[in-house]
């Protein structure tokens, strides 16, 4: 962050958080590979390899604004992906029309979006 941008931020903790976040992202990008994506697809929840766990810890700790969640349209049959507003009282928004038939598939679809966001950030 440039000095002139920092003066615009009242909470200086946020300035460091952004620096830390950038370092995290740069490191985590090096962990993304076909193996951990396949590992997640096979087992979205539970104990994972260290590489996948580190990536997931980062994703889960993100702020609430635009954070992805699974939307259940029909229990155990139909799921979609939405993004939270991060603002109390404001609805989440649908991010794609794709329908997942199991919640596990939705978890993985959501993970792939997070990986894509990380790699593009």
């Amino acid at each position, binding site marked *: 962050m440039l000095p002139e941008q920092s003066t615009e931020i009242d909470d200086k903790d946020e300035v460091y958080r952004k620096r830390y976040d950038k370092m995290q992202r740069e490191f985590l990008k090096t962990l993304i590979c076909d193996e951990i994506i396949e590992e997640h697809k096979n087992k*979205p*929840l*539970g*104990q994972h390899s260290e590489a996948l*766990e580190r990536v*997931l*810890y980062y*994703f*889960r*700790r*993100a*702020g*609430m604004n635009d*954070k*992805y*969640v*699974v*939307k*259940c349209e029909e*229990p*155990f049959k139909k*799921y979609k992906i*939405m993004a*939270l507003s991060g603002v*109390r*009282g*404001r*609805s*989440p928004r649908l991010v794609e029309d794709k329908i997942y038939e199991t*919640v596990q598939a*939705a*978890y993985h679809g*959501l993970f792939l979006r997070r990986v894509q966001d990380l790699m593009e950030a």
Partner: protein
Amino acid sequence: MAEIKIFGYTDKLSVKQGEKIDFHVSADGTKTAKAQLVKLIHGDEHPDGPGYIDQEIDNKINGEWKVEKQFTQLGSFLKVKDPENKLAIDGDFTIFGYIYPSTPKTGHHQWIFSRWDNKTNEGYGIGINKDGYLELVVGDGKEVDYLISELPIVKKIWYFVAATFNYKTGEATLYQEGVLTRYNSLLGKVVPYDYRSHTKTTFRFKQKNNPNTPFIVSGAEDLHELRGRFISGTYAGKVDRHGVCSKVLSKEDLDKIRDGDLPENNSIVAYWDTTVGFSDNGINNTVIDIGPNKLNSEGHNHPVRAMTGWNWNGKNDNFRLAPKEYGGIDFHPDSITDAKWNITNSMIIPEDLKSGIYAIRLRSGPGTGLSEEYVVFFVRPKKPNSKLCFLVPTASYLAYANEKLSFEATIIQPMTGQPPTITDIDIEQYKNPEFGLSTYDSFADGAGVCFSSYKRPILNMRPKYRTSGMGITWQFPADLSIIGWLEHNKYEYDIITDEDLHKEGLDCVKPYNCLITGTHNEYYSEKMLNALEDFVSEGGRVFSSGANSYYWVVAFSDEQPWCMEVRKLEAGMRAWAAKPGEYYMQTTGEKGGLWRTRGRPPQKFAGVGFIAEGFDTAEKYRKMPDAWHRTVSWITEGVEGEIIGDHGLAYGGAAGVEIDRYDLSLGTPPHTKIIASSGGHSDNYVLVTEELLYAYAGLVGSLDYRIRADMTYFTAPNNGAVFSTGSIAFGQSLPSNNFNNSASTVMKNVIDAFIKDGKLPGGAWTLEEKQWK
């Protein structure tokens, strides 16, 4: 056509045969709904279980109900009882008081002390304008005059503020002085802020006092065409002692009041001394006017009392030591503890309706999702008539009522190890502040929610509901898996709730041989805990189904039993922590926090206590050597091999979600047997914070041996006993394979033994192991 939505609640959760229950329903997009009384049997739709099961019951309440849109007053405030309109001052006045605004700049006007009508612009009052400046307002119904301070209010700082108005000359003054000390505010003295502002102007207009306008602290009167009169412009923050005088007080007079003096007696119209009324047993919702007119004010939606005041000095940590330092009353615009909807319908519980868990199912239009509602209630027998009783953990349902963690808490995904799975019901609940908050949420101003009530729809106390953060059933719908097990095995059982246990104590449970608790009975009042302890020590048996039980101290008032208070302190797995000095509950005067920190760890009663939580997987139990001991081998009779509970609707295992451990150092009865323990939990299972002195790396499932669920059993005097599963997931494991599974076998062995009169299998424990009979 508008989307159809139906929501409802009952006036009481627990009702006896022959008693009346009222239903309060609000609907959008429809004027009618089809009502059907149902007995709830099973509430989890997970495909590995039997699915949702209810039983329709014939009753004259069934049929078409007329429903309407109902409105809810949001925000906590005080309304002054002023039948003779003493505060309708057609003359000089001074309003004054201490304030501690939490969020002064909200973009909305916040009224602090007002006799003002927002619809007609009549009256007078002081508040904080949308830009965060203190403001005096006077209006005559046609014109309004304002006086604004020079400096914006700084959040979470104690101020003394006052406004004077000279009726004859029109001179108005506004007085604002910071009264921060080393302890009482967010900031200390090292910050070079100037909190002081003194402004003056001449108003062109005078106040017109409508006789129907009430004096309100935190808000002002308003009118809406459909909903009628209500309070708007509520305030976020604390007030301390405040008052109104019928003369213009000088700056010197106000300086004295700022320093703690009272105004001259002959000028006082009202002086609300917020420190009057404390006893060792707390304080109620009435704020006492010590002036000549006795114009007491009443709290609505539970303004929070027993909070530190402007003169709190940091030495005394509760109002029982120094009531005069606890004049703080905290207001929140998003507080709601009684929706006060009109009664839609009422029902007398038939004398022959079996004790159980029931709901009025309401459907309109498509009759699914938001157009289907189950208004749940619990029916007790007029007189106990079973050996077995299920104790419904309604206090814990209140704690989690309408929680919004998936939408707001950054910690929820790291904690649960998964993304939330939300539904239209969750979104609707999130969009509508009228449904209120849980004790896991914070108000918009950042303060933790310490009151929760059932006089509002509780959308997660419904069959079929899956808690969004964890993707499983939780609390009420999870407890229906135990009900389903009782029904499947054709046990005769009664139902009682935490509220009954709190009100009636031991008498309420004494008639039973065995009590079964819910999957997560986390919140306990002292009366509830005493009743259970006495029940067991006098020969009762408890099957403690869940985990993280008997954990938080809570309080209920006799006048408003529908509302629970909790204060979360320095220890425990908690969504917020009370601010310094605000540890004692206004409802009873007791210290809040964990029972563990008050000398009653759960281990003392149940044998086990909270050790870890995790939400990505669940495990099985493996028998421990004690399981084969001749005194307790009957518990696992019929379970082939060592494994118990390798199945379930909560992540596929009976040991998980939240888990409890045996610990002699915390009072586990020394003769307790560990029947089985889980293990191999994932690293999403982390040690509870109350176990921590120093934090260090590795306090997780794969690295810390303590992280496990212990299934324990011990005997008590007079043939009493406690069996604990040590796991929330145990209850959800029962329905697997149509209730035919190893967890179910264990539960059946224990319940069959516990409901029998006389001695337990295995005999009584005396001093030495050899003396087991």
